[in-house]
Structure formats: C-alpha cells, structure tokens
C-alpha cells in the first residue's frame, strides 16, 4: 500500500514533467508537421538557465528569499521562450515550404549547437571578450529553493510503522506548477480566440490565412509557449534532483525522447493527448521501477510505445486523420 501510494505520487510528478515537455513537441508538430529535435535541448537549457539565475542572484540552498522559486521559474521560462522564438525565426522560418527532410536535418543541427554551446566554459577566444558560459562540462548541484522537510509524513501500514510515505514540498511544487501550467494552456487553446486560431492553422494554414490569421505570428507564439513549458519542466527537474548533468549528456536526449514518446502515445498534435500521455509514461515508468526492476525503466516506456503503436497507431486521443471532402 505504501509502495503503491509512493509510486503513484512519483509517477504523477515525473509524468507531469514529461507532459510539459511533450506539449512542446506536440504543439509544434500540430502546426508545422515536423518533429522539433531541438526541443529536448530547450528543456536542458531551461534547467541550466534556472541554475544560472540562482547563481546570478546568489540564491543558495541555505539562503534564498521565499519567492526565489518563482523568480527562477519565470526567469527561465522567459529565457527559453525568447530562445524558442529565435530558433524558429532564424533556423526554421527560412525553410517554410522546403522539403520536410531539410527542416528535420536543421533541427538536428540546432540541437547539436545548443548542446555544445551549453558546454562552453572557458573558451579562450570568447573569454577575451568577457564572454563566459556558466554551464561547463561537468555535472553541477542545484540549490534547492524550498524547505526540505516533508510536509506530510505518515505510515499507512501499522505493521511497518517505519515505512513512511513522505510528501515533500518539491513534489507539491512539481505537481502544482505542472498542473497549473497545463490548465492555463488548456484554457488558451480551447477557450480563447488565439487558441482557436492555433487550431485552425494546425488544420490548414493556407485557409487560416484567408481568415485574416497571421500564420507566422501563430507559429512564433507556439514556439514561445512550447519552449517556456519545457523550461518550466527543466526548472522543476533541477529542483527535484538537485543536480544537473552537463549539457551534452545523453540523459537529456533520453528524457526528451521519453517526452516525445508521451506525445506519440497521446496522439501527436493533440494537446490533451500530450498531457495524458505524459502522465501515463510517468506512471508506467515509476510502477515498473517500484514493482519490477529499477534498471529497466526505459524498457517499460518504450514497450508502452510499441503496444500503443500496434493497437492504436494514431495515439490514445489522436483521431485517425479525417479526409477533407
């Protein structure tokens, strides 16, 4: 019982991070019909940006103002939003209308660029101009901006009074922020005129422009939102683990890949699907880790992908493409 509760909580926490990242993949795919390979790097930079903000403002685990978490969160969301805007503008927009393979290769190029820019630390040439990159080539520990005492700590099973379920502030932060952002996005996409325009562009961009919708602007906004959500995931991830691997570490790509799997499982292009898919991937991973083996957690995720692709290739919430009459 204790194990069940703990695995559910971890699953929802990890899953909501996957969901936040998956949203960026799915929104960009929905509108431009291509997989933005650089998205996992935006997530990685989101984590590192929030770390850099802590360093810049002098926040440490022991000494930080109460609003520090909010500053780091919003700061890194803004930075990644700007980054996403720039990437789209400089790398993808010039290729609008080009064969999809060109865009895909460009996305991989952008991805490698971001990973390696993140690694630069004391490049002599750049240092001469006073440019220093904060990330470096080694893992770093991240200051925790929250209390580390459990909010709740209780034993479920009276036979094992020492096996406690712990609800940590960081778990509440992760789940609270992720669900708030998803609710906001849900409202934006399904409850506002801009969201309606986004859905129209995703169905048919040319006709959308005949309605007076500025398609380029909608694309920019999509990148900004997707990147900001990935940054939020990056910040939350840093808080949860309190350490970050260096920017070119394969772990980032693996996390991005799992989030991408979440998007596909939910039905790529479908916003609600990405949220559901993320939670599902998180739960499968954590339950597998708790009840089967911790070492095989990647296997569970990718097995789920295979099962979904076999039985419902359009994804759980995806619709088989409706042909236009």
């Amino acid at each position, binding site marked *: 019982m204790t194990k069940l509760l703990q695995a559910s909580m971890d699953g929802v926490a990890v899953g909501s991070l996957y969901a936040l990242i998956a949203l960026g993949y799915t929104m960009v795919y929905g509108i431009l019909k291509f997989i933005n390979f650089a998205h996992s790097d935006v997530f990685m930079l989101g984590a590192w940006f929030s770390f850099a903000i802590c360093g810049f403002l002098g926040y440490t685990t022991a000494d930080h103002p109460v609003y520090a978490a909010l500053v780091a969160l919003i700061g890194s969301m803004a930075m990644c939003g700007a980054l996403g805007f720039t990437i789209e503008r400089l790398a993808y927009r010039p290729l609008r209308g080009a064969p999809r393979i060109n865009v895909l290769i460009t996305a991989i190029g952008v991805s490698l660029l971001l990973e390696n820019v993140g690694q630069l630390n004391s490049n002599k040439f750049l240092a001469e101009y006073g440019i220093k990159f904060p990330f470096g080539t080694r893992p770093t520990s991240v200051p925790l901006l929250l209390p580390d005492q459990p909010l709740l700590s209780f034993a479920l099973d009276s036979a094992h009074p020492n096996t406690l379920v712990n609800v940590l502030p960081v778990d509440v932060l992760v789940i609270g922020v992720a669900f708030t952002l998803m609710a906001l996005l849900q409202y934006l996409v399904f409850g506002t*005129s801009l969201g*309606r*325009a986004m*859905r*129209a562009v*995703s*169905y*048919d961009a*040319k*006709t*959308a*422009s*005949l*309605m*007076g*919708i*500025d*398609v380029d602007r909608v694309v920019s906004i999509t990148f900004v939102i997707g990147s900001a959500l990935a940054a939020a995931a990056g910040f939350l991830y840093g808080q949860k683990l309190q350490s970050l691997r260096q920017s070119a570490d394969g772990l980032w790509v693996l996390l991005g890949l799992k989030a991408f799997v979440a998007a596909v499982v939910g039905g790529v292009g479908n916003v609600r699907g990405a949220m559901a898919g993320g939670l599902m991937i998180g739960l499968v991973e954590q339950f597998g880790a708790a009840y089967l083996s911790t070492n095989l957690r990647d296997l569970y995720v990718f097995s789920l992908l295979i099962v979904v692709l076999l039985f419902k290739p359009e994804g759980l919430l995806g619709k088989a493409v*409706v042909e*236009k*009459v």
Partner: protein
Amino acid sequence: MALLEVRDLHVHYGAVHALQGISLDVEEGQIVTLIGSNGAGKSTTLRAISGLVRPSSGSIKFAGRHLEGVKAHEIVRMGIAQSPEGRGVFANLTVDDNLEIGAYTRTDRAGVLSDKERVLDLFPRLRERLRQLSGTLSGGEQQMLAIARALLARPKLLLLDEPSLGLAPQIVQTIFAIIRDINKQGTTILLIEQNAHMALGAAHMGYVIEVGQIVLHDEARVLAASDEVRKAYLGVG
C-alpha cells in the same frame, strides 16, 4: 474607378504559366462572374487576389491600393474575404468556431454577434448544428458554412470559388438566392462557377477565361445570349 482592378496579371507555378495576362474589373455593388473550363485559371486568379500566390507580373488594385506583395492575412483586413475552392472548412473545429474564425479580424463584438444571427437566418441548417464538428457536416452544409464564414468577415468584396460544386439542384438554387441577397445588401461579389447558366443568370458582368487568358467579357445577359458561350459553356447548339 472599379473597386477591384486587375491588369495584365501573370502567374507561374514553376514552369506552368497559369495566368497569361488577365485583366478584369469588378465594379462596386455588382456581381461579376468568371467562367471557364477546368484548369483555365479561375482559382488561380482568386488566389492571386487573396495573396496566396505571388504574381510574376501585372497589378491588382483594390479600392485604389495595390495588393501585390501584401500578405494574405492583411488583404482580409483590407476587406476581401474568400470562400475557397473545396470549401476549406476547419473540420477539427465546431460550426460555431468556424464562424468565429471568419470574424477573426473584427473587434466589434456586438456587430459580430448580430452578423452571426443574420447568416444563421440565411442558413438555418447551420443554426441546428452550431456545436457539431464541421467535419461531420454534409458537403452542402460545409459549402453553406464556408460562405457564412466568409460573410462574417463583413467584406467589401466577397470571392466565391465554385459555391455550387457538387450540390443538389435545390441547394444550388438556395445558394444562388442567397448570393443575390448578400449582394443586394451591399456586398460586391466575384463569383467563379462551372455552372455558367446559374452564374450568368445572377451576375451583372461576366468574363470568360480559357487557358489563362480572358477571351470574352460583357454584360452577363449578353454573354448568356452569345453563340460562343452557349456552345462552349451552356451546352446549347
């Protein structure tokens, strides 16, 4: 000066020379029809006016302002709405959302709501289906939606690309009655049709296009009576 003036318009799709020097005028308050067989360049003409394809040369002037190089979404703001070929309703959106998208450029909320009432009076079937996904509408209903959606932009000039395509004769009658109605209420219309008979019956002026060139133009009733048109497009003689 006509509301819309197209002069010596050329459009290429790669090596295909689709429009080879089209000139036409649409006078304010009129219905002008452009008829011609498949592949003649009718839709291309509308796409060029709406800014979806870039002309290789020639000029398009609307209310005295040049449209070449203006982006599609800005042209809508200038007062030109199009109901495109094949309808192009957003199948993933409800009927109501499609109508709202039609009014995307407008900020006069009260005006939009009263216009919505007006088009729903024109197309009562749509009113019954407001919450339905538009992909589930019948072909005729989708055509009605496409026209209604274009009207919600409250355009000065409405471009209609084959509004009667694939519709049952009764519905074609209804659609044409509505087109006349819209026009009487002050909207200028450029109408593309394969149904030359209906189109010439409704229009003030007519243009005949063949392989990218205008070969005839005159008052619609004169064209309807001319031997050439009767033979080639009205299936008479």
